[in-house]
């Protein structure tokens, strides 16, 4: 018993473990089994036919490519923001810092509605982009923009604490040893923030794969072109084809669970960035 739980003098083990298992079982695990039951009713051929339907496959490609581009954008943008927020002092810095969390606080439907309006052909941005013949609303690019917006905070908020802890003295040491700013960044800073950067980007990618609210407002949802996989599930549901919805969802779910385990793996290997996860 004692080896089983070593901090045994503190109260509430039974009640807290009991309610944790109850809650996680009821809220998280039970619904997952519902999906498994539904999918298990399909034959392998039917299952394969649903998930390899060309329109669905097109949605995989749209979703994955947009999420990839969005998370790569956020990799650079997040790194830049984390850097200037931790290393420089300038007017408005505190406000800018607070602004970084906006996408998490702002409901996705609001983000979608607003981005669609901004990038519409008559919108604030859209009218100028039209001059260059760039269309964002109702295109693949619109999906990327929505995904970028909703996942901005991930990289910033994972890299920022690491940079804060790392401190500028290492850069100063490197500079006094004669390294150029680029050498300093590449040899001194980058190795230190790499795990956080990787994790932030992976989180951003995961979030983008599942993004729905912001995307459907701006994507136009044109079959074969701008339908994301989440929307495909939604469409199957509206057709009351629950089995097909479940089958597609199982693919999405599997991918997100794999990503979750990868992210947890990164986090475990680099414990020191775990506190940064919000």
């Amino acid at each position, binding site marked *: *018993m*004692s*080896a089983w739980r*070593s901090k*045994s*003098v503190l109260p509430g083990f039974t009640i807290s473990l009991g309610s944790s298992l109850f809650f996680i079982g009821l809220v998280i695990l039970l619904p997952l089994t519902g999906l498994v039951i539904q999918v298990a009713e399909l034959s392998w051929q039917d299952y394969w036919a649903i998930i390899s339907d060309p329109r669905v496959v097109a949605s995989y490609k749209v979703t994955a490519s947009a999420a990839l581009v969005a998370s790569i954008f956020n990799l650079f943008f997040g790194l830049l923001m984390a850097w200037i927020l931790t290393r420089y002092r300038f007017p408005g810095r505190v406000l800018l810092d607070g602004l970084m969390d906006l996408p998490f606080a702002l409901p996705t439907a609001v983000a979608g509605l607003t981005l669609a309006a901004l990038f519409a052909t008559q919108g604030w941005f859209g009218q100028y982009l039209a001059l260059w013949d760039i269309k964002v609303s109702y295109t693949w690019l619109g999906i990327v923009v929505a995904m970028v917006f909703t996942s901005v905070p991930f990289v910033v908020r994972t890299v920022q604490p690491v940079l804060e802890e790392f401190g500028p003295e290492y850069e100063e040491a490197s500079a006094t040893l004669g390294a150029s700013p680029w050498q300093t960044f590449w040899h001194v800073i980058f190795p230190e923030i790499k795990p956080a950067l990787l994790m932030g980007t992976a989180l951003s990618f995961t979030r983008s794969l599942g993004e729905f609210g912001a995307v459907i407002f701006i994507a136009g949802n044109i079959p074969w072109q701008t339908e994301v996989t989440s929307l495909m599930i939604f469409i199957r549901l509206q057709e009351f084809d629950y089995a097909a919805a479940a089958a597609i969802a199982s693919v999405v779910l599997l991918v997100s669970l794999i990503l979750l385990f990868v992210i947890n793996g990164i986090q475990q290997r680099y414990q020191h960035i775990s506190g940064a996860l919000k």
Partner: protein
Amino acid sequence: MSIGIERIRKSFGSFVALQDINLQLPSGELTALLGPSGSGKTTLLRIIAGLEQADSGLIRFNDEDISQRHVAERGVGFVFQHYALFKHMTVFENVAYGLTVKPKKYRPANAEIAKKVHNLLELVQLGWTADRYPAQLSGGQRQRIALARALAVEPKVLLLDEPFGALDAKVRAELRRWLRRLHDEIHVTSVFVTHDQEEALEVADRIVVMNKGRIEQQGTPEHVYDNPANPFVYEFLGNVNLFHARVKQGQSQIGNIALASPEYNNQDEQQGLAYVRPHEIDVFSAPQADAIKVKLDLITIVGPVVRLEALDESTGQLIHIELPKEQFKTLQLQQADTAWLLPRYSKVFLGEGI
């Protein structure tokens, strides 16, 4: 209240923290559990407190088995290394806590609690801090408050886990003398854990030296220091020089130097290792019969004491010596000079290995 520890064992996974510990601590004594980190001393303390459960074995308070009793019912006061003061409560509230959480029928009246807390704060000489928060106090003050808090519930046993570990050297030295005096005043059976041999030697009535989950030796500080039971205890209790020695009929020989070893009176010739403390070596500036000839590599003057590092060029061994500054001055030795050494006393353990 005496403490009896019988056949205590404890493992964490595959790591054996304590193996078969047996120990009797008489009532009213101040005992030090001394050992390096990982020796199991803190685990033993936490098992006595009831914060940790032993895998097997018994803990007795006054011959009564209390192993199954809950921490709160054991009547122990516990002082943590990092104080564990409740940082959102004032000093007064911290010290009063053990009294205010008592069930209503056992709880003293507020005036009585206040009186008791103020008495305790006077005892630890911090009466003026009652309305402050822990963050406003220095480390040494916090630790005294933590002690007052533990004493408020009138524990029958006081347990202290590295009580001075987080303090700087000067405060440490002050506080341990203070603890010694306090103990003489209140005489509650106390056990404290430390890895600092000087602290244990200075403060404790009794020292229990632990290593790798076992007790190596116990006894009064003087006894343990003068008669270390084995090489581990010898080395742990202070700096030491090791020499190869031959033991025969109550004598041990380091090179050509003969020293008395009465414990080996009937011993046939055998190899051993002689342990000589740095202050047990005489230094000469002129050649002496049988003495070890050395070159003085490094001379460090630390206040009233001089520390020498001397190189025996024939063996390559570095010998550490300590002697009073006045005595060293009369020798008129400089760095890189040649000197001659004669150990005055040694303790020999048989066997080849170190």
